[in-house]
């Protein structure tokens, strides 16, 4: 039950960041510094020691699906990318990052954000000819990927902290209950 509740709060946070990004941040985002707010959340799910693979995978899948839905696209790209991101980060075994400082966490999220952005562009290029993106423009591709990575890295500490608090919420209750 606690797992479900945690997943619920994570998904609610996902909805919140997606809405904030599409409303408030829409006017503030300066291209190509376009953050991918779900990436830090998925990275956290992948590297947090107390989150099982199945819960992390399902939550990542649902977060990706929320991303697709809130971006008005059909299920697929975001869902696939978030599920894949979870698996890759989990497999790479970057759990040690959580033990380091905020710079490492931001760097991990930023690099993942850049990879997700590049992966999404590549996936669209593969599945959606003619390509609606300017893939022949290398500087455009580079600036988009680097911008997404940098912006994602910048927002990552905030989202890591939110995720950590969601996880800690129920841990404290458990501890409190045990002590009682």
């Amino acid at each position, binding site marked *: 039950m606690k797992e479900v509740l945690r997943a619920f709060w994570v998904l609610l946070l996902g909805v919140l960041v*997606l809405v904030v990004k*599409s*409303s408030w941040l829409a006017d503030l985002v300066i291209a190509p510094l376009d953050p991918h707010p779900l990436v830090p959340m998925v990275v956290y799910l992948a590297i947090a020691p107390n989150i099982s693979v*199945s819960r992390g995978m399902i939550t990542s899948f649902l977060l990706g699906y929320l991303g697709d839905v809130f971006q008005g696209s059909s299920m*697929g*790209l975001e869902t*696939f990318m978030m*599920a894949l991101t979870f698996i890759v980060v989990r497999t790479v075994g970057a759990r040690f990052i959580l033990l380091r400082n905020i710079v490492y966490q931001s760097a991990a999220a930023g690099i993942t954000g850049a990879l997700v952005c590049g992966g999404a562009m590549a996936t669209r290029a593969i599945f*959606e000819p003619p390509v609606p993106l300017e893939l022949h423009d290398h500087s455009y591709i580079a600036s988009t990927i680097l911008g997404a990575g940098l912006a994602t890295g910048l927002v990552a500490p905030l989202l890591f902290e939110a995720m950590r608090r969601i996880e800690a919420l129920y841990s404290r209750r458990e501890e409190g209950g045990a002590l009682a």
Partner: protein
Amino acid sequence: MSYLRRLRDAAISVVLLVVPFLVLKASLSDPSEVGPIDAFVLRLTAPIQGLATQAAGAVSGPLEEYVDLVDAKAESERLARENARYRQELRSLRALGRENNRLRRLLGLRDQLGHEAIAARVIAKEISPEFQVMRIVVDRGDLDRVRPHMPVISFEGLVGQIRRTRSTYADVTLTTDSSSAIDVVVRRTGARGVLRGMGAKNRYVCKIQYLKRSDDVEEGDEVYTSGLGQRFPPAILIGRVTKVDKEDFGLYQLVEVTPAVDFSRLEEVLVLTSRGREDKEGTGGRPRE
């Protein structure tokens, strides 16, 4: 247990990777090239997509409306500030326009009179307890060659005369002041008299003295300077007759005149520093048409 758990995790991971991959492939494919598997996937996911989109709209709609409202409030405040600034600018422009108009009329009057004159700004007003202007101060004085007894006019008519001067300013005695005496002529009939201020503290009013009972004067008649005595140039409007009182006895009638100049709104005046060309040419006291 550990093996089963790992198997479960692997199965979930594969399913959750394969499903979106298939949907992604189906939805991004060219519609003309959608195969049977893609079509099946799309048919299967279409209702879910519809429900999810509706749910997302229900969640994000109110939030986005709230954000829009916040933006609208900020926009409204910005527009209100902008509006206030524009209103202030409009008021300033209107005031400048009025001032420009007055100055143009003053310039026109000066050209019409043919006098040497200098423009002066009213810098102070002595107000009676009944809020009537009793005396004014203008920003021209000795340094500007302003001297006592010089006539002071506005585009509305005669204001009065310089009473005393200082280096940079001068006091002006208004036509309504009890110490003011001006030789005047009633324009319609040419009847002459001496206009004296009544010094009333609650209204602007003068009286014409020495106006014969036989002279034809009616309320509404315009009263001008006659030019006699050469203190004031002729044909400057002073005001209009507002009361005529012919007693059954005596040589003269009592006539009250309300000045044409609104002293309370007076802001710019002309100080006539020389005799005009008409005086020099000897036009006498004929009112100007």
